[in-house]
């Protein structure tokens, strides 16, 4: 197996684990953990594809920068989910996804 195959299979494992977590977790924070797993897999696959291709120079760096942007997006997403979990906790008293039944709370 070529190195690219190995790295892509590792990122595929991360994607599968994240999907399993998305379905079995009940609270918003648990979902956040699963989504972070999947985003890590995405970044790993991007860097692996960029570094094991025959392209060098700026286009190779392009791949690493794309992974950096994925990290930035993950950080922004984590901030927003933290704020949303706070609001949900105040309004519904719990953070299970089943409790989110109304848009405009009483």
């Amino acid at each position, binding site marked *: 197996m070529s190195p690219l195959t190995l790295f892509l299979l590792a990122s*595929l494992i991360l994607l599968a684990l994240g*999907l*399993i977590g998305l379905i079995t977790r009940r609270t918003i924070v*648990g979902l956040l953990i699963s989504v972070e797993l999947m985003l890590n897999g995405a970044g790993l696959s991007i860097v692996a594809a960029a570094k094991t291709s025959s392209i060098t120079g*700026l286009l190779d760096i392009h791949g690493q920068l794309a992974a950096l942007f994925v990290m930035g*997006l993950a950080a922004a997403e984590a901030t927003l989910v933290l704020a949303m979990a706070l609001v949900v906790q105040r309004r519904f008293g719990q953070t299970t996804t089943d409790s989110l039944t109304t848009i405009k709370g009483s």
Partner: protein
Amino acid sequence: MNDILNNIFHSLARLFADLEAWLAPFLPSQDLAAYLAFAFYVLLLLGGGLVAVLARNLVRATLGLIITFLGVAGMYLLLASPFLALMQLLIYVGAVCVLIFFAIMLTKNTSDGEEARCPRLSNLSLAGLAGLAPLVVIGPLIYQGTSSLVTRRPADTVANLGEGLLSIDLLSFELISIILLVAMAGAVYLAFRPHGGRAR
């Protein structure tokens, strides 16, 4: 005093050089060492990921997530991008995990809370299906469709990355700064409670 320290240092260095020369026939080659390191990182990634997904205590799940992040950082090192590995440690382990800990504590997710119950069997089987789907669909494609074009190449310097950030990726760079600003402002707007007022 300085001479004595110098002497000790030099004799230590000679000792290590002798030791390395003696051990050289037994040490693995560079390729084998890379594969061994890869296997170790995959173990970290798998074990941490399983803990993160299956642990019934969210704090333990976050610790598993940290181990997974460490494994991915090691893979970035293997891919000759040490700056990304450093950023992985700084951003994910240093920032995102702390944010998740804050979220756990602020939402009163106790160890006997909602996540402590085992999920239903139907839920678990659906989750297994969802996890198998990408493995079955994308796995064979990866196995057949990737060719090995890998060449040994030196690690990129941070200066190269910065140059790329301001030339080829300029638009994404500006966009992500706006996204971070909007996310920060949105988080403050959502979580801010005026003095004595009710929550939004």
